[in-house]
């Protein structure tokens, strides 16, 4: 079996180089929504990548914390895509993005109440039943102080994993950004995060708000991974061991070789741990 070490978020501009890249342990992640299409070259392209490399499907729009459950046509489409490309990983966010007929393209926050816990668990179960396998749930980035939390984020995620059998996706950049924005210790968060359910790690670049500067960090995915995020990654891996780790990049796309060099840094940290298993 091909052991996943570090992967790269896949963009159309990098298709040829990604397809041919022989790096050991390499895998690719795509946003599932970009492939929930009826047919055509996009799916053919994804299948070609999948024939050469392990693939991860990362959802951004299922709105698992939304009041309404994920709709049946979307779940049927996702299930068909999962059957088609047999991904190594499937993931989504602890967030909401749908309201009535509308999709608000962002990962929106909510008070972590008992009601929210029951809601998210029901929706995670619905997705897992539809696609016939567990998903991993990601901690989002936070920009607001919200009142009415009955649960801390770590306990909330751990309880969802316990109740639904889902895995967790630890986005270390989101921890760094959220810690700065809402005032907690990123180190304490990473140390307290339950290691066992974690099936994937995300690392991405962020940016200081153009007006507020370093007081407000934005999870922009448009820059290299920053030094404090690498330090948190090292801290988690030293305690928890290796996990498939993704370099996310969605904007200001550099040449593929540059992304691969960032990915190689994570790979070099993970490969000896994976090899020792």
């Amino acid at each position, binding site marked *: 079996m091909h052991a996943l070490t570090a992967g790269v978020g896949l963009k159309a501009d990098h298709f040829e180089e990604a397809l041919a890249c022989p790096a050991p342990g390499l895998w690719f992640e795509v946003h599932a929504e970009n492939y929930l299409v009826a047919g055509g*070259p996009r799916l053919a392209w994804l299948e070609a990548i999948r024939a050469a490399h392990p693939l991860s499907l990362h959802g951004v729009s299922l709105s698992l914390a939304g009041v309404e459950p994920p709709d049946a046509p979307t779940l049927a489409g996702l299930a068909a895509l999962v059957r088609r490309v047999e991904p190594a990983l499937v993931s989504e966010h602890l967030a909401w993005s749908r309201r009535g007929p509308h999709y608000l*393209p962002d990962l929106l926050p909510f008070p972590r109440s008992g009601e929210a816990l029951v809601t998210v668990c029901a929706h995670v179960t619905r997705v897992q039943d539809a696609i016939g396998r567990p998903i991993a749930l990601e901690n989002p980035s936070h920009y607001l102080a919200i009142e009415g939390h009955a649960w801390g984020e770590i306990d909330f995620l751990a309880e969802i994993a316990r109740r639904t059998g889902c895995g967790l996706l630890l986005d270390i950049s989101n921890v760094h950004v959220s810690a700065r924005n809402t005032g907690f210790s990123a180190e304490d968060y990473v140390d307290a995060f339950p290691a066992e359910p974690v099936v994937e790690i995300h690392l991405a670049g962020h940016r200081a708000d153009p007006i507020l500067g370093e007081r407000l960090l934005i999870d922009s995915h448009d820059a290299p991974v920053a030094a404090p995020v690498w330090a948190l990654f090292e801290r988690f891996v030293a305690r928890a061991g290796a996990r498939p780790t993704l370099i996310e990049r969605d904007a200001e796309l550099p040449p593929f070789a540059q992304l691969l060099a960032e990915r190689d840094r994570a790979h070099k940290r993970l490969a000896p741990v994976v090899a020792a298993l």
Partner: protein
Amino acid sequence: MPTPSTLDDFQRDFAAALLGEATSAAAQALAAQPGFAVYRNTVLRGCIDALAANYPTVATLVGSEWFEAAAGRFARAHLPRDGSLAAYGEGFAEFLAALEPATGLAYLDGVARLDRAWTEVHLAADAPVLAASSLAALLPMELLDTVLVPHSAARWVNSPELPIFTVWRRHREHARLDDPLEWRGEAALLTRPGAAVVWRALDARATSFLDECAQGRPFGVAAERAFAAGSDAEAGIARWLPALVAAGAFTRLEP
């Protein structure tokens, strides 16, 4: 101690605050935090970027400042309904046609219709392409009663007065943009006979013929309605039918 709101209340108020609508005092307090702008910007940016990706020729023609202003107005009035933004922007051409500041560019909505056609063809379901040999195997009398079913990945656009196809294809093909334009109507066919979307100019009567086919009318009726206007009807359909078939405009025959 304020009463804890339900998840539904919170999300209703949060969404209203995002869209700049009247909302609760609690949501107004949230919206007053500096970080709230990140959500507001991300939602709008997601819509605008999707429109720019799906209407690249329009975006090039008008420049980013004008495009972002128009796309922002469209997005506020027509929020996405699908979690996949791959096909977001249905109705953008009609929106542009009605937009007052667009009146300086008469062909803008026509170009938007071609951008939209490209996206729809690109994302359409896979299906077999009707082979010319299947058509050739029919007797002339059989052909008259047969329906030519348009392919799921075929779109045609007719502009009776403006050279929208020339403007559009010059951008798509990275051709010279400053050659003089001939101000006459144009029509175009976009199809996906292989892995890529392809396009070609059409006779306006050929688009009428395709409209008739899409309505389920048999060949004889469709050809008569589309080409009857001129005395060269037979020559017209004889010229255009092989071109339409070769481009992959049809998927199958229905008796």
